[in-house]
């Protein structure tokens, strides 16, 4: 079952990630978004750095989908993710979270991490 969840979440992300630029995204406050990512419990599945990777939510850092797909999925997920209605998460807060996700700096390069390069 766990593997199944990983598969469906990976499918979700791969589907969204291909959907281009966030041109129609509302302006959000990334600093607030970082706090809201925790307070609205997104971290519970996606990790505090939006790194994903476990048996729950997939990674969002570095592959945030375009705003229309992102907001549509958060409001009405088609897979296992729990739904966030505007009552639970107002549009402005969702925009803040989106802004933070887009602002996450890239991770260190694989080549800079010795543990990933030992044979």
């Amino acid at each position, binding site marked *: *079952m766990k593997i*199944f969840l990983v598969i469906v979440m990976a499918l979700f992300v791969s589907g969204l990630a291909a959907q281009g630029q966030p041109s129609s995204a509302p302006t959000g406050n990334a600093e607030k978004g970082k706090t809201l990512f925790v307070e609205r419990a997104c971290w519970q599945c996606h990790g*505090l750095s939006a790194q994903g990777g476990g048996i729950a939510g997939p990674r969002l850092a*570095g592959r945030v989908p375009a705003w229309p797909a992102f907001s549509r999925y958060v409001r009405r997920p088609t*897979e296992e993710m729990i739904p966030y209605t505007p009552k*639970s998460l107002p549009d402005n807060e969702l925009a803040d979270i989106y802004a933070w996700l887009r602002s996450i700096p890239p991770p260190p390069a694989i080549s800079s991490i010795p543990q990933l390069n030992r044979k």
Partner: protein
Amino acid sequence: MAIDPNTSVGRRGFLKGAAAGAAGAAALTVPGVAPIDAEAQSAQQARPVAITPEQAARNLAAETAPLPDEVDVQTVDNPGSDFMVDVLKQLDFEYIAANPASSFRGLHESFINYGGNKAPEWLTCCHEQASVNIANGYYAVAGKPMAVLTFAPSGLHHAMMGIFGAFSGHTPSYILVANIADGKERRPQFDWGAHSVVDPADMVRDMVKWDDTPGSLQHFAESAVRAYKMAMTEPRGPVVLVVDASLQENPVPDRSKLHIPKLTLTTPPAGDAGAVAEVARLLVAAENPLIIAGDVARNEEGMRLLVELAETLQAPVQGGGRGMPNQHPLSGGGNVRTADVILALNEDGLFGRLNRYRDQQVRSSTPLIKPDTKVLSISSYDLYMKGNYQNVERFQEVTMSIAADPQATLPGLIEACKKLITADRRRVMDERGKRLATASAEALERARLECTYGWDSSPITLQRLALEVYDVIRDKDWASVGGGGGRLWNVDKFYRTMGSVNGGGVGGSMSIAIGAALAHRKQGRLCVRFQPDGDMLYVNSALWTATHHRIPMLFVMQNNRAYHQEVMHLQRMANRRQRGMALAHAGLPGSSITDPNIDFAMMARSMGAYAEGPISNPKDLRPALLRAVERVQKGEVALLDTLTQPR
């Protein structure tokens, strides 16, 4: 108590006097009754009645004279429990795990003094759930059962979760349950209720393969051998043997009349040759075959066979547990959506594999596979099922179902496939294999990339934790005894990994890991266990069993200070109901383990383990791991309390 023969207050008299004194003292407190003259009473008590030396001698003789032998039997030379130990020795048990109990005091003494505490050696456990799970973990590595001894009712109640886990995981737990069947043998204050049950095995009958309550020593010998055989017959599972206390403690009437039967294990059933040939035909003809493997391999040979089948067909293998090297080019690939033939091997979660299930307010499921996909099942689980406790999912329709042991069937299936593969099919398969190998290499590269996200986060990400641990053990002969390291750990041998607790039983995995590490000890393998905090809080006394018995192993905690899976469930409920999201985030009362935070390192040190922590900075991990591994390699138990992100 020294007896003074010159007074009338002998041993028995003393007891009577004490009782009378207590009654007198009680009488003094009765309201409304005139008190006795205390001074006069004291003077009377201080002057024993003088008696003659002859009277004293008679009194002493009466006090110490033994009762007739036929009335007061006080010793035994050949207790039944010695014979029971002979039976269990013949079954080649290496260890017996138990928390001590008076109902099996006879057997306990026999194990130590008659059996020499060797084969089986006694493992001191502090909880019966730990006893059973240590045995379950030992089996996962040793491939044979460890005996467990407990008593009815309380000990068996404690053991039940471990037995249920064994049932769910097809593990042959061998449980001996002491009971006092004969009412006249029960001590009045202790044994009625506390150490006796009319039918102890009834408590677990729904989750064991077989049980018996022998009424004689010969019956015990035969049932002990039968129980072992039943437990080890595929599909394997737990068994219970009730051991009566009187049988343990009474003498053997005539040892020469008792016989211990020879154990002959049952050969696992291979699939019907005709059905196997049809499976081979479908697999060889398939364009996109997929193997979904559950618990297939029992040993290295099982892994070799599964790899050979995959390579023969150049077919991807999903799952496979310990039966498939995780970095093999054919491991983990394929897709149920595109597969035209799916071979499921001992997969008791097939419905979940082949259907998309959504846990929204209205739960729904839709098939993932194409309507014309052929699903072929080879499973020994079809040979055995219980009604009350069900370790199956929803019923999955299949095209063919062969009730057989997959490992025993694989040689015939591989041979049948090889016979059918033409040069054309070989080319198709080789091309498929190349595509799958490329996809596998890409997946491995993606796994490396995933590790970099959140690399410096605190609390530590699970990916970094796993990689840091692997980095200090990769060049040693390591074994993970619970909790996976992920795709970046090169699981190239059967013994590298194992399952963990089955049946959803949080609290059992620490003990399972200890049992597994015990089985690895003789090979000198470095055993590592990723230990969740919530699980450790159930039966943490198992850690003492590990230190006491010098079972070297490393615990690296995944301490998220919560029952985080439940946190996520509560969040799901709150979101669904559009209320209390902030409260759910905080763990809601009942699911967080904070205030105060638990000092697991201190807990481990209190039981004799080497421990460090809490460690929350990922940069502190490597030096701590190096120190801990050094201690483990010297034979110690080490624990690092690492604060991690929950998922």
